[in-house]
């Protein structure tokens, strides 16, 4: 009888260890507590001519501080512009002026693309759920290959007629 009791206790401890590891993986490794905090955010749409290799879940930052994430990327069928929906955490930044600029930048030379917001100057109107940052106040991604080919083409033409 004693034997069965020790077996049951060790099996119970084993199960508790498993659940504890799941908790540790969820909270410490995947940072699930950040996940819960991030859900309530207001969605803002931005239109870009070219988004480069921006992906869903990419960082949205303001002055280098992460304030939200890209939640959806789609193509506008009439104008063929890229529409990027981003969710912005109201706890990090609540009142973004309506004339805020959005630019797609690259983290380092080889890093991922992310969206950088530059706040505008309006003091009365602010971006709220469903608002749009129009084409006029966004900067598309800089594609390295295009830059290089432009540069090379420029060099070639300058070599031809000095």
């Amino acid at each position, binding site marked *: 009888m004693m034997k069965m009791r020790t077996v049951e206790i060790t099996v119970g401890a*084993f199960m508790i260890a498993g659940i504890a*590891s799941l908790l540790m993986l969820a909270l410490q490794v995947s*940072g699930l507590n950040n996940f819960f905090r991030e859900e309530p955010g207001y969605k803002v749409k931005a239109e870009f001519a070219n988004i480069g290799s921006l992906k869903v879940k990419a960082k949205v930052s303001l002055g280098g501080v992460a304030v939200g994430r890209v939640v959806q990327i789609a193509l506008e069928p009439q104008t063929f512009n890229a529409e990027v929906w981003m969710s912005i955490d109201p706890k990090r930044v609540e009142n973004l002026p309506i004339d805020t600029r959005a630019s797609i930048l690259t983290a380092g030379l080889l890093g991922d693309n992310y969206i950088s917001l530059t706040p505008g100057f309006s003091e009365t109107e602010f971006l709220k759920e469903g608002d749009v940052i129009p084409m006029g106040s966004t900067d598309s991604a800089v594609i390295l290959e295009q830059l290089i080919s432009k540069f090379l083409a420029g060099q070639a033409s300058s070599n031809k007629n000095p």
Partner: protein
Amino acid sequence: MLLVRRVHALGRVGVLFLGDMGKAVLCLCHALIGKPDWINGFKRLVNQLYFVGVLSLVIIVLSALFIGMVLGLQGYTILVKFGAEHALGQLIALSLVRELGPVVGALLFAGRAGSAVTAEIALMKSTEQLSAMEMMGIDPLRRVIAPRFWAGQISMPVLALIFNCVAVMGGYIVGVDWLGVDSGAFWANMQSAVDFQDDIVNGIIKSVVFGTVIMWIAVFQGIECVPTSEGIGRATTRTVVYSSLAILGLDFFLTAVMFGVT
């Protein structure tokens, strides 16, 4: 004539293989489907959880610790060349949670628990304990196989979770305490890279699949063994070989489905 003989041999192998697969499915269905016996079944399950799960804990924890430490050391020596040693946490956590935890855990589990289950059942068969049970009106499949199968199924994901945890700790010990990576950067990079749904839940799904496959192979090889001492040895070897191959092969497909297409 030679060609006909070749085709004949091939067909024979195919028919035997299909027959074995069918027998394995029938054996499992027979063992698992039916009226559950809650009280006695639970007692037997707890007993098997002890033998299959708790006794595998030592090898799992020790290997996890060393694998995590090696990952930390190796990852650091490579990342430091690019000045990216702060991404060490991300490297360790992603490779562990997605691949190494479930796969290495399952390989160790197949070697430790799968082989033990096969040897046990095969010896029961060789000494005609299974036939004796049948004579007494007890169904040996439900009595012997079902608790072992469920125990393996339950303990595999638990062991994989413990493996992941201990290995991350091992990586932390080497990376942060020994090699001096910043602790905050270690955890922050890890948390921003690892997604609960995509990485951890998929890792758990993987280990459940591996647990099922290992235990299925183990009990079937035990039941189907040739009842001699040589047969027991062969059945045990086959369990380890087949389940290792099945784990690695299935892992490729699961990874392709889960993480392959972005």
